[in-house]
C-alpha cells in the first residue's frame, strides 16, 4: 500500500485535481472585479484581437455587401410600399415628443427611466467553446463602461449585459447564457402592461423565458416585450422581442411567456453599451432605509 502513495504521478494528479476544484470555486463566486493579472491578460489579448479583427471585419463586410446586392430589388419594392406611411408616422412622433417635453416641464420632472447615453463598440472576440456565450468588445473602463450595463445590438434589440470590464476591453454575457444571475426586469406592452423577469433561455426552441407574470394576465401572441427599467441598471423601453406563446408555470401561480428575441445572437459585429442617465441608488443606502422602515 505505501508504494501506491509513493507513485509520483498519482500524487501529481490528486494535487492538480485539488487545485482545479479550488480555482473553479474561486472563479465561480460572485466577483465584483477580476483580479489584476486576469485583467492584464485580457487586455493584452484584446490588443492582439483588435489588430486581427480589423481586416477580418473588412473582408466579411465585402461579402455581406455582395449578399445585400443580391436581394436589393425585392427589398426596395417592400421599402417603397412602407415609405408612404412613414411621413405621417414621423410627424406624429415629432408632435408626441414635443408634447411629452412640454408636459414634463409642467410637472417639473426632469429625469426619466428611459433616458440613456449609448457607447458604440466593436466586437473583437467571441468565446469559441460556445458554452458560456461571452463576447469581447473593444471598449473598457476608460470609455466609461461599467459592470452590468445593458448591451444592445445594432438593430436596437437588447442582447445581454456587461459581465466584467478591464481598462481597454470588456466582456459581455449574452441573454442566451444559462446563468441564474442573468435576469432582466421586463414588461409586456399592451392595453394593460404586465411585468415579469427574463430568466433563462430555451436552447431547443431558441426562445427566451419570461417568468413571474401574474396568472390572470391575458397575453396575446406578437405583443412586444421591452425592458421595464425597474431592475435598477437597465433603462426603460429597450425592446427585447415578441411573445410567441404562454403557459402556466409548475405550480399554477404564475405564467411563463416564451419570447422570440429580436436580436440575432450569432451574427454580431457592432454593439451599443447603454448607460442609464438616471442615478442609481446606492445599495447600502437602500439597506439602511429598509431597516428604518421596519
Amino acid at each position, binding site marked *: 500500500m505505501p508504494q501506491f502513495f509513493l507513485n509520483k504521478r498519482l500524487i501529481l494528479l490528486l494535487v*492538480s*485535481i485539488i*487545485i*482545479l*476544484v479550488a*480555482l*473553479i470555486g*474561486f*472563479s*465561480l463566486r460572485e466577483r465584483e472585479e*477580476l483580479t489584476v493579472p*486576469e485583467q492584464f*491578460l*485580457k487586455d493584452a*489579448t484584446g490588443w*492582439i*484581437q483588435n489588430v*486581427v*479583427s480589423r481586416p*477580418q471585419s473588412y473582408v*466579411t463586410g465585402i461579402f455581406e455587401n455582395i449578399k445585400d446586392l443580391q436581394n436589393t430589388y425585392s427589398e426596395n419594392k417592400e421599402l417603397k410600399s412602407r415609405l408612404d406611411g412613414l411621413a405621417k408616422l414621423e410627424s406624429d412622433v415629432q408632435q408626441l415628443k414635443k408634447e411629452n417635453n412640454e408636459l414634463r416641464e409642467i410637472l417639473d420632472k426632469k429625469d426619466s427611466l428611459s433616458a440613456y447615453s449609448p457607447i458604440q463598440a466593436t*466586437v473583437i*472576440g*467571441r*468565446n*469559441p*467553446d*460556445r*458554452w*458560456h456565450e*461571452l463576447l*469581447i468588445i473593444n471598449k473598457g473602463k476608460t470609455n466609461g463602461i461599467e459592470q452590468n450595463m445593458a448591451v444592445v445590438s445594432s438593430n436596437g434589440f437588447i442582447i445581454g449585459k456587461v*459581465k*466584467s470590464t478591464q481598462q481597454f476591453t470588456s*466582456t459581455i454575457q449574452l441573454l442566451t447564457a*444559462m*446563468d*441564474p444571475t442573468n435576469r432582466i426586469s421586463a414588461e409586456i406592452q399592451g392595453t394593460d402592461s404586465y411585468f415579469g423577469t427574463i430568466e433563462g433561455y430555451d*436552447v*431547443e426552441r*431558441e426562445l427566451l423565458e419570461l417568468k413571474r407574470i401574474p396568472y390572470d394576465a391575458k397575453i396575446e401572441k406578437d405583443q412586444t416585450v421591452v425592458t421595464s427599467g425597474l431592475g435598477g441598471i437597465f433603462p426603460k423601453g429597450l425592446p427585447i422581442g415578441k411573445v410567441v406563446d404562454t403557459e402556466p408555470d409548475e405550480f399554477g401561480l404564475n405564467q411563463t411567456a416564451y419570447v422570440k428575441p429580436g436580436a*440575432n445572437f*450569432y*451574427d*454580431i459585429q457592432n454593439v451599443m453599451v447603454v448607460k442609464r442617465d438616471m442615478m442609481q441608488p446606492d445599495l447600502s443606502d437602500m439597506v439602511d432605509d429598509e431597516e428604518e422602515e421596519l
Partner: protein
Amino acid sequence: MRKYLLPLLFILFFILESLFVQTLPAEVFNSERILAPRFLMIVILFMTLYGHRDQGLVYGLVFGLLFDVVYTEIIGIYLFMFPLIAYIASKLMRILQSNIVVVSVISILCVVLLELGVYEMNYLINITNMDFSLFLNQRLFPTIVLNLAFIIIFAYPLKRIFEKYATSLRED
C-alpha cells in the same frame, strides 16, 4: 527570431478560434447545431506528439490558462484538460506507431475526450443543463466533423513544422 515563431503560431490559433466562431454565418450550417472549433487542442497535440513532449505539455498549461482567463472567465477547466489530454495522447503513442493517419485519429479521439470532459464539468457546476442525448446530437457530432476537416487540411503542414522544430532542438 526562430525562437518566437512557435509561440506566435500558438497565439495565432488561439485567436483563430474566436475569429472562426465570430465569422461563421449561422445560416450556412443549420443554426440548431453548435460547432465548437478545437484548433488549439489539435495544435497542442501535434506539438506533443511530433515536437517536444514536455514543451507540448507546458504549452497546454499556458494556453489552457489563457483560454480560461480570456474566453470563459472560469479558471481551471481548460488549464486542467489541455495538459491532461496531451499527456494521455503521448502515453497512447508509446503503443502505436507515429503514422500521420494514426495521429489524426488520436487527435479526433482527444477532441471527443475534451468535449466530453468540458461538458461534464460544465454540467457539474451548472453552466449548462443540456441533457446528454441533446449534447451528442447538437454539439458533439458537428464538432467532430468540423475538427476532422481542420485536421485533414492542417495535419501535414503542422507535422512538418513540429518535426523541423524537433530536429532543430536535437541539433542545439
